[in-house]
């Protein structure tokens, strides 16, 4: 087990290093940011001065080593546009995105699992078919369009819910949180539903498939033969078994939710990391783009590592493989 963890950690370091190369050289191919940043009537001399100030006059290889050196010290460069360090700029926005993503995940579990179990228990009933049809719709609906329609219905037509911003926030340990106030919750509801829609469909399908498979297994028959009530068989015995794939897939999907928050945040003007990256791409703020990418790469590798380790704890077969490898 320990060997497996060490191997995975070494792999993670290697991947992060490769990603710094890809990200840095990739992003530095984007058009010249100087053209956007300096005064339009800037002459050659002030152009060169600006280039020097931003460190863009060095050869690109040298720029990379400067970047790598600084990155190891936790400095991912200053934003070209605002002039503040890029890393804190993103970290400051992170709680908003994570809050939204976690809220969406919780919704996906608490709506998706019961619906999926129902559809799995009664696959031929009308309600079961409606749930499955709904899940196909959830897969097919373009999520940004659903977001727009939700704004139109709930914010413009009826005026029930606000459509932009985070609302009132509470500061806990230096982090601003929306979900602790009623106003914040009302701001979060629409974006969270929007983000959760696809995941709810996914969880419904996973749970239903697991449910249909599990109901024919011997342990279910045995539990029934023991005289347990149907609800106990389903909620205790079956539930435990079908949750394994659901938890694993959802763990892997957390990264996807965070990435997809880019779209949701843009629609609902949610001040998270995703909105920041879209804004930065539009003004070619290279250090912010690079810092965002590095943080997400870091985050994904971490999430994947945790999920793999968790899986090897849950499922003994994987654990054996890991030790042999």
């Amino acid at each position: 087990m320990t060997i497996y963890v060490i191997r995975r950690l070494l792999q993670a370091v290697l991947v992060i290093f490769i990603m710094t190369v890809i990200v840095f050289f990739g992003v530095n191919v984007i058009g010249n940011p100087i053209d956007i940043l300096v005064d339009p009537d800037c002459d050659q001399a002030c152009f060169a001065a600006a280039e020097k100030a931003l460190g863009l006059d060095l050869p690109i290889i040298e720029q990379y080593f400067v970047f790598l050196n600084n990155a190891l010290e936790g400095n991912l460069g200053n934003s070209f546009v605002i002039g503040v360090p890029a890393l804190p700029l993103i970290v400051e926005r992170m709680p908003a995105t994570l809050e939204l993503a976690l809220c969406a995940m919780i919704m996906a579990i608490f709506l998706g699992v019961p619906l999926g179990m129902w559809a799995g228990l009664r696959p031929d009933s009308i309600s079961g078919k409606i749930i499955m049809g709904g899940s196909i719709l959830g897969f097919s609906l373009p999520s940004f369009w659903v977001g727009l329609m939700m704004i139109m219905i709930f914010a413009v037509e009826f005026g029930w819910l606000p459509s932009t911003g985070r609302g009132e926030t509470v500061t806990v340990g230096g982090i601003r949180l929306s979900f602790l106030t009623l106003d914040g919750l009302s701001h979060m509801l629409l974006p969270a539903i929007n983000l959760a829609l696809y995941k709810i469909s996914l969880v419904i399908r996973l749970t239903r498939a697991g449910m249909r498979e599990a109901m024919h297994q011997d342990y279910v028959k045995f539990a029934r033969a023991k005289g347990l009530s149907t609800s106990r068989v389903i909620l205790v015995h079956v539930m435990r078994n079908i949750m394994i794939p659901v938890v694993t897939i959802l763990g892997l999907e957390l990264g996807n939710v965070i990435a997809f928050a880019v779209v949701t945040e843009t629609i609902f003007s949610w001040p998270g990391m995703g909105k920041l990256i879209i804004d930065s791409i539009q003004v070619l703020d290279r250090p912010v783009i690079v810092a965002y990418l590095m943080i997400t790469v870091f985050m994904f590798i971490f999430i994947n590592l945790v999920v793999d380790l968790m899986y090897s704890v849950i499922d003994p077969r994987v654990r054996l493989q890991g030790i042999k490898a």
Partner: protein
Amino acid sequence: MTGLVKEIPLVEVLATEEGAVVETPFHRFLSGYCESNIAIGAFFGFLLVLFLAIACPWISPTNPYDLMQVDIMENRLPPGSARYSDGMVYWLGTDGQGRDMLSAIFYGLRTSLFVGAMSGIIALFLGTTVGLIAAYFGGRVDTVIMRIVDLQLSFPTILVALILLAILGQGVDKIIIALVTVQWAYYARTIRSQALIERRREYIEAAQCLALGHCRILFRHLLPNCMPPLIVVGTVQVAHAIALEATLSFLGLGLPPTEPSLGLLIANGFDYMLSGRYWISFYPGVALLIAIATINLMGDQLRDVLNPRLQR
């Protein structure tokens, strides 16, 4: 249970009460597919969408990108309004520049489907080749290729596409490159797992004993027997590509305004929506939904029919 694969060269003769009916694998596939009315409906829905996309220059009421036919004074008209000059009805209203929404949707559908299909075909070709090579040669080649595939699949598609487009800029070719880059790995993984099973079978050994070239064995012997899962993944991925392209265009990173896809039409309507002019975003979204949903529904049924484990 015999796999679907083994049955392909066979032609079974089934005796029925009326007499002998020849049932080929294609017939079996067809009757399996037609078991679901929804799937049949989805197929015809998709044909309709395809027809609209291909025939749009001849059937759409106006050409929305011909400035001579667009009257800026007639912008943001609600659905059902008539054109002042000749009384032509704007069935779905007009957008911010006075373009007929119905025509704009037909043209947008064309762009969206084209991008989805093109990137699907290229990614399929690329992914299949790489996946077959990995499975066939095994060893170090396999390890290296699958490491790259795993690495890529561990990052969300939207993020990778976003970054690529930020680097490459706007354009139809650029978005196809981005979509192919994020999708080839899915095909490669699918075909590899299928090919790993197939390559241990006797017919591959026989082909190798006949000293046929690697290329011939890969594409003439191995590939046809790995098709079923590839078709299923292909349908789902094309739907996914269309949705992804729309999303990226909506974010302003995909197609340029001169070649608007459905995503861009929806984005244009975003500005007018807060003043209650819903139709500029609403109808392109419905068209997008129909295109994606019909493909997904077909993929769903294909999965059931082509899955050997569920063979009835």
